[in-house]
């Protein structure tokens, strides 16, 4: 099992957001996590990636057989955990190339591999840019600075392609995307998908799942999963909305 989250409780500033969350993900699988706003979907992503301020009060995140509760974000990343941010951060003054090269070489150093040569790196960048149809020259641009909403999300998938994660979490990657950009992003994901990696797709709407077809759909509510099923569940949710969830599991 690639990821096994057991009875996870996470609090921010003492307020409990995740309340006994459980999830098992195997290699080769795509899991969709759906649910109304404020149920802890983004908190889940933050907890898995080790963001500061998200305190695990109970439970375990087991990744590749190891409890990673105390791992730093960079260690998790270098072990193959990737988060496509809902709101990618703009970093003025850091060029995309410098950023990616530093990240890639950090991973290689972690793995005990030599630094990648400049020429090789540039070639890899060009190749991966094509995957998400980025035509602009990224080299002279600061990370996400002045990128449109769509460009930012494509850029996330581009970075994912560069770093080749084992576990990729896509946090609301579809938000703010028009249908064309959505297709590009989905195509990127589908091409990166293999038997050796897994995806957790956090989304509010079913739309993205038309293009990234999940093996499992989980409905999250009140800080935990309240219902799981196949891809049909997403369609059901699309038709019925989330009202029934609230009715069945109570208003928070």
């Amino acid at each position, binding site marked *: 099992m690639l990821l096994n989250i057991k009875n996870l409780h996470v609090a921010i500033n003492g307020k409990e957001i995740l309340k006994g969350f459980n999830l098992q993900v195997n290699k080769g699988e795509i899991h969709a996590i759906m649910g109304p706003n404020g149920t802890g979907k983004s908190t889940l992503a933050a907890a898995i*990636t080790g*963001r*500061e301020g998200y305190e695990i009060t109970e439970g375990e995140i087991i990744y590749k057989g190891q409890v990673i509760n105390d791992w*730093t*974000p*960079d260690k998790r*990343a*270098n072990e193959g955990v*990737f*988060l496509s*941010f809902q709101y*990618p*951060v703009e*970093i*003025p*003054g*850091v*060029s995309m*190339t*410098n*950023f990616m*090269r*530093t*990240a890639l*070489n*950090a*991973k290689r150093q*972690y793995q005990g591999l030599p630094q990648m040569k*400049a020429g090789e*790196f*540039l070639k890899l960048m060009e190749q991966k840019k094509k995957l998400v149809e980025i035509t602009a020259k990224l*080299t*002279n641009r*600061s*990370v996400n600075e002045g990128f449109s909403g769509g460009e930012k999300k494509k850029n996330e998938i581009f*970075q994912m392609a560069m*770093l080749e994660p084992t576990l990729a979490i896509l946090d609301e990657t579809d938000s703010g995307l028009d249908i064309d950009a959505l297709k590009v992003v989905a195509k990127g994901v589908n091409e990166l998908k293999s038997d050796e990696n897994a995806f957790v797709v956090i989304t509010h709407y079913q739309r993205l799942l038309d293009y990234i077809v999940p093996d499992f759909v989980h409905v999250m509510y009140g800080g935990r999963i309240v219902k799981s099923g196949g891809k049909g569940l997403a369609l059901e949710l699309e038709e019925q909305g989330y009202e029934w969830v609230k009715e069945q599991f109570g208003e928070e």
Partner: protein
Amino acid sequence: MKSKNKIITPLEKELLKVAEAKVLSLEKKSGSDFEELHKALKVFKEKGLPDKNLEKWRNTDLFEWYQKPFSPVAEKEKFTKEVDDIFQCTVQGFDSNVVSILNGHYYSPERTTLQSFKNGLIIGSLAKAKTQYPQYFKKYYNKIAPVDTNEITAVNTLFAEDGVFIYVPDGVEVELPVQLIKLVNKRGLMLNTHNLIVLGKNSSFTFLHCDDSINHDDSFINTLTEVHLGENASLDLYKLQNINDETVLLNSSFFSMERNSRLKVNVLTFNGGSIRNELHVNLNGEGAEADLSGLYLMDKKQHIDNQVYVNHNAPHCNSNEVFKGILDEEASAVFNGYIFVERDAQKTNAFQRNNNILMTSTAKVNTMPFLEIYADDVQCSHGATVGQLDNEAMFYLMQRGIPFEDARMLLMFAFAAEITDDIKIETLKTNIDDMVKKRLRGELSICDRCVLHCTTPDKPIEFEIDLSKI
């Protein structure tokens, strides 16, 4: 001594003693030099050295430094060895005309003390130029910065005997930058030097002013630079400061700018006990333009004070100030930006910005904009920020696998890059970038090398190659 009943510090006592003896010995001679000296002594007797009771010195307290009776008199060293032998400062790939000042005196072989070139360019010792080219002194010396401007100019006048003189004739565009290396190799000295730079009409010039230490001895440096930019003249001035923690550096530059002249100043402060840079820019002719920027990276108990005075005395002038700093440990910084717009200086554009990153809760910044505007058709703005590194950005970088220290470094470097990216000489920029990285990594020292000499770092520096340049 002082009008207000203040303590006279050991340094003030020492300075007064030497100054009075000097004036006395010159009494029998006459001439304008003596008059200026007399005026300076009068100011010094009235005001003494600046202290924190003065509004403009409120946040820079040198009282502790005044406890040492630094000697304002230094022997002129005979030229026995090349500057390179004392101090290496040949930048790889960076071509410049190097001049040097050692212990306050122009340091060169006799035959090159004052050089005049075919195109009319003059470079050399101020002391010697004073007698050889009195016409320029009559017109500009002590005129751009009058002796009684403030405490510092008065003290400088009392003791400065030498400095650098540069004259660029009308229409001459000097391609090779001149690099001034100012050194001290004796302890306990107060060094006053006075530089004069005159740029004729339609001329252009690039000047690097480096203050370095070659050991850990204490010293008190007080430099005054007067610069005149003729009509349509252009000056690029870089100040590099990498002195030891036992040194005080007061660096005052006064600029008078005629019509359509262009000034660019870049002050890069890497190290020093206490440093105060004063830039006094007078935009006297229509269409003059001043672009002033600075970067300071301080730690330990170091102190940096940047005082920028921009006087818009004529219409249609532009000024832009951007000063940025990173302060670690218990370092402190001051930024005071004064913009003054004269009644008739319509269509003025004056902008000012100061951004600071505090790495610790003990680091401190005092930043104050001050705008005095008497014209009604102007565009002026100012802004200041004091903050920490962006946590969101830190997490973003770390989520991509970049370890904490490297992520921190990357963000600090990016913050500084806004200033260093502005350096026009490519090789100099590369050198400065390396210095910034070393400084931020805590690896830069005032080793016995020029700050510009760090092209071959002992350790490989990451983020070294900006592939955007490929």
